[in-house]
């Protein structure tokens, strides 16, 4: 058989020819004939203006509610990185790196508004790149979950092994664990900061093994952050679990604990803190945050303001389009607007 260019498709054509009978035509014909019923919405003034009004009507109340929620949140923020270095220290970096100095520091906070429990205690770091590529990958999830996989430290360099033995937990994230501590005193009474359940339950149960214990951690020549008690399993090391949930942004807060006491306005809280963590080398800020929470989370005016802006904009657009439509009505779908029906201009 000679084969011409369209030989095979041509056979198909002949086949089609023979199989094409009246009865087979009608099956699925709506689909094959591209005649499926369709609705064709068009941006008519009525439709567009009502959509904008509708969006406005929905968005403004949500904006108001979000903004109110955000306003209800009481938040006390105290930056202590500079204040906690004695005034006479000129080289802050040397100061923080000197292990021999006891770096305790006392801060006093005044409650500006009544705060209902639970009150969340956060630490906030600025200019800290937990999302850096070198950093974010430097961990071994297998090792954290499974006792038998302690040796899986592929991504953990340069904190993978110590003298040939695997470090658990390995990697830069665990190594640089935040190690400032806070003791809160309310009107001379000790204020308990509950450090239970500050991490995600799912992490404790499935990501960090209850039979995995720290090994060779912070034993190397360079000590990064906090040391871990080698007798406590990783699933109970909640500070570590919180820290290992890396932040996506260079400014972030991490939960330190909760206070189960209501605070009254003008209460004074004294914070005894140990200022161990080094943010001085890269000029990062450290802040202590006490905050209540609402259905929308912590204090964040953004959503409320954005909703109000969008709602307002929609109302404005609806109004403007209505006005425009009244002032300069234009018949939609007029044959005369078709370019080939218009006299050619400027030719």
């Amino acid at each position: 058989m000679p084969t011409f260019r369209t030989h095979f498709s041509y056979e198909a054509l002949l086949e089609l020819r023979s199989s094409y009978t009246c009865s087979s035509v009608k099956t699925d014909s709506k689909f094959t004939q591209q005649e499926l019923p369709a609705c064709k919405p068009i941006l008519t003034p009525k439709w567009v203006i009502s959509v904008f009004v509708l969006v406005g009507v929905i968005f403004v109340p949500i904006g108001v509610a979000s903004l109110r929620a955000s306003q209800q949140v009481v938040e006390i923020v105290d930056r202590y990185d500079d204040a906690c270095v004695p005034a006479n220290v000129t080289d802050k970096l040397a100061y923080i790196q000197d292990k021999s100095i006891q770096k305790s520091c006392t801060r006093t906070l005044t409650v500006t508004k009544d705060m209902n429990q639970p009150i969340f205690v956060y630490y906030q770091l600025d200019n800290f790149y937990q999302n850096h590529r070198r950093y974010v990958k430097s961990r071994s999830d297998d090792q954290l979950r499974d006792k038998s996989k302690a040796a899986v430290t592929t991504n953990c360099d340069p904190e993978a092994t110590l003298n040939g033995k695997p470090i658990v937990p390995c990697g830069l994230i665990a190594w640089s664990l935040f190690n400032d501590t806070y003791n809160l005193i309310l009107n001379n009474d000790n204020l308990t900061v509950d450090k239970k359940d500050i991490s995600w339950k799912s992490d404790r149960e499935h990501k960090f093994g209850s039979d995995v214990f720290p090994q060779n951690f912070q034993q190397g020549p360079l000590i990064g952050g906090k040391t871990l008690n080698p007798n406590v399993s990783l699933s109970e090391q909640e500070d570590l679990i919180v820290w290992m949930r890396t932040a996506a942004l260079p400014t972030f807060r991490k939960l330190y604990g909760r206070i189960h006491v209501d605070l009254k306005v003008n209460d004074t809280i004294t914070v005894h803190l140990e200022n161990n963590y080094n943010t001085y080398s890269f000029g990062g800020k450290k802040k202590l945050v006490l905050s209540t929470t609402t259905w929308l989370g912590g204090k964040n005016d953004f959503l409320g303001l954005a909703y109000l802006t969008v709602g307002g904009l929609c109302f404005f657009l609806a109004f403007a389009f209505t006005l425009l439509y009244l002032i300069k009505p234009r018949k939609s779908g007029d044959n005369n607007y078709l370019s080939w029906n218009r006299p050619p201009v400027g030719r």
Partner: protein
Amino acid sequence: MKRLVYINDDSCRYSYCDNRISNTKYTLWNFFPKNLWEQFRRFMNQYFLLIACLQLWSRITPVSPVTTWGPLIIIFIVSASKEAWDDYNRYLSDKKANERNVWVVKDGVRRQIKAQDIHVGDIVWLHENDEIPCDLVLIGTSDPQGICYIETSALDGETDLKPRIVPPISANMSVEQLEKVKGIVECPNPDNDIRRFDANMRLFLPSVDNEKCPLTINNTLLQSCYLRYTEWACGVAVYTGNETKSGMSRGTAEPKLTAADAMIDKLTIAIFMLQIVVVLVLGYFGNIWKHTKGLKQWYLMYPAEGPWYGFLVIPLRFELLCSIMIPISIKVTLDLAKGVYAKFIDWDEQMFDWETNTPAHSANTAISEDLGQVEYILSDKTGTLTENRMIFKRCCINNIMYGNDNGDALKDARLLNAVSSNDPDIVKFLMVMALCNTVVPVKSNDDTVSYKAQSQDEEALVNAASNLNMMLISKDSSTAEICFNGSKFKYELLDVLEFTSDRKRMSVVVKEGQTGKILLLSKGADEAILPRVYPGQQKQRYLEAVEMYSQLGLRTLCLGWRDLEEDEYKEWSKNFQEASCSLENRESKIAEVCDSLERDLHILGVTAIEDRLQDGVPETIKLLRNAGINVWMLTGDKQNTAIQIGLLCNLITSEPNSQLLSISGKTEQDILRSLERALLITKNTCETKDLAFVLDGWALEIILKHSKESFTRLAMLSKTAICCRMTPLQKAQLVAILKSVGYLTLAIGDGGNDVRMIQEANIGVGISGREGLQAARAADYSIGKFKFLKRLILIHGRYSYNRTAFISQYSFYKSLLICFIQILFAFLSGFSGTSLFNSISLMAYNVFYTSLPVMTIIFDKDISETTVLQYPQILLHSQAGRLLNPTTFCGWFGRSLYHALVIFFITICAYADEKSEMQELSMVALSGCIWLQAFVVMMDSNSFTSPQIILIWGNFVAFYMINLILSAVPSLQLYTIMFRLCGQPSYWITMALTVAVAMVPVMAFRYFRNLYWPSPINILQQIEQSNGSIQPSRNVGSALKPARTNLTNLLTGSRGSRGSSYQPLLSDSAESTR
């Protein structure tokens, strides 16, 4: 140059290849490397391979290598298996042909061997209905006259039977002699010309003198034809395997690239450039950050001394991060969409020709978009515009015109009376009609005679003659029998002076059986016959008749005859034999000899044959021209007839609205001068006037030789042209000229003479018509009738273009969207090349989440089919590439940048501080992309059908389902993330905000534009909406009349700004920016 074939001789049989046919592209061994090589010739594949290889370097890869390797391997496997399947099928069909059993004579014994084992020089024995296995020279048949019939439809698509004759030298040989015959055939080296075989043969026989006998194509049996109506035939194999004429004419067609594809390639390269710039800039920033800030971030533990290639690491990371800018899925998505467009064409019932039961078929699935951008249609006339169903309508005999009153000479009482009264002129006239042809009468069982003819005209003439009682009863190679008014006459057929397109006439020399008189009977075109009359013959009346008939669009032939003296014939016959034997320039030598005989003719009369216009042709041409498509007619017919057909089918209008410029002349100078004049007139004429030029093949030949440039300029200015007397090559040349200046051409034809033009054009359309299926086979699309062309172009072409424009730009949009988010994230992650999204999300985003909704656009219709057909001018929109060009792409680019900014900033603001957990934030941003893309597809769909709604929102639901399932797998990074997010009110509020901020400006802008600067599409949509359904009466009238004139302006105006094809053709400036 020459090949010597020793008949039935084993000594030299192995110097030529055996008869194994191979059409396969690959072998088992070279498939893998060759196919890989072919695939890697594409820029995109090279690019993705590079990316995939870079990803293997774990130091720089932001995501798992699977994200690129997976899709890449899938794409490769899909296209490789398609190729393999096609090639396997080819292999199977080759194998079937190769292993067929054939009878071959060896050493005087007939034996059965496999077809692949035939060698040059073997004698092959064929039986009735056998397929001919290789090219043979016929040496014997069962027919005592030495005739056999073959069907050549597989070779040239012609379905009629063709007679083949045993060369005289071997005629009258017995079967025993044939089995033992020895000799030499001297033939040219293999070529692909299926109409020529200039060879000669010498047989070593004791009884025959050792004389060279000439061979022509009529003595051959070509491979892939079938033997019919002949008990057996035998021949000498001269060409075998892939060296046969059909094997040599098999060409692999270059894959065609559509204009839209070319634009997509350009955009891809532009994006690639952008990517390089982004990579360099971010890489630079990254290295700066590393050295100024990074080294101070103690927790990153940057080593003081990095490796020497350290400065490359960050740029390469960004290269990998940005590699998703070029969507890996675009080719697969587009191929899939194009496949569906092609299916829609195949399925279209409105393009189904119920008369012949032919559906439309697209053999080439890749070029549907081009249909919507066609600018020039070059159409054949006979069989394409006309039905190619020839009917004898009128004649002029002896200065009397028959058939003038009722339009049908066969019913003209005067003619019928003249026939029954044996009017000698009329009898002669009918005799020429019946004898001067190559028609084969086939007697069926019930004694009725039907005619098989190569030429439709001859068939019409013979049929008409038999209706007028002049029946051609039987015919073989040397005798013919006719029956007139009941009495039979025998004629001896002495010679046939064949028709060629140069001679434009054919003649036969016959000897009357009873009287022994020798007659020359001729028929041909008027310009070929009338100059050859004897001096003194009145031809004025015939010229008038010809003129009048062609005015009516009828095809005319002049018939003539003359007595030959015995001596004159004998002398001429000798010359003729000599010319027929020559190996070189045979055709022109024969023409010269024939010329010497065909003179001093007595004109008998003129016949007029009607070839009716196909149904719906004028309307279709009018519609296509309103759509801004220029239609040219290229025909082999003569000028007057062509012009008449042109008038009848709306191609040209009569004065004063239009002017016909004729380019003609007696000398080369005349022609060139008239070309310049035509060009001048065309340039200076008022634009409302339709100008068309007419030229013939001879003029074209001279013009192409001397003044191609002026002609190209004229071609660009002319909306209409009629080119007559075109050879197949010239048709293809005209297509090439238009293509060379950047026009998108569509060639449509039905016969073998259109194949070259069809293959040359951007789009070839074949009409599966009466001249066989050859054109339909070579074409990209085949349709049953010319009128289906309007649906093919205006409906399928236009929709395909619109859809491809959307799919391709959307594919870039979604890739850019996610890539911009990654780039923005680089600013917050110390330019370190962290990926915000995890590998699973990235892969699923490209392959799954975004590829399904966009496919819904293949159901989209911006305006209904009725509206398109009513306002065909809308085609200008897609013709000018208004929906896919750098400007519209900038719109999409801007939109993706804006949407990326919206998603990114809303996400980082809403999920700041204590919420800024990496996985959560990443999922919020990804959800934002998914929400937006659903709304973008919604916004840009023009119509919603149920599959569209199901796919868009089903995909949306699927996204949540998949991520909820993934969130339940503890080992994944995504574990619990989606559950947590779905439980947070702030997540849903953030999503709604993202959609509103992203879509409100788009919608406002679009509304504003639709209302105040509407594009024609918008207006038509509004018209549709307001009318419900359009009232044809009012709109068509008002829309089309002024449209004609203004369109002229627009079109001619746009010619100046050619080159940037996307510039607005329509006079408004509403761009399709979004």
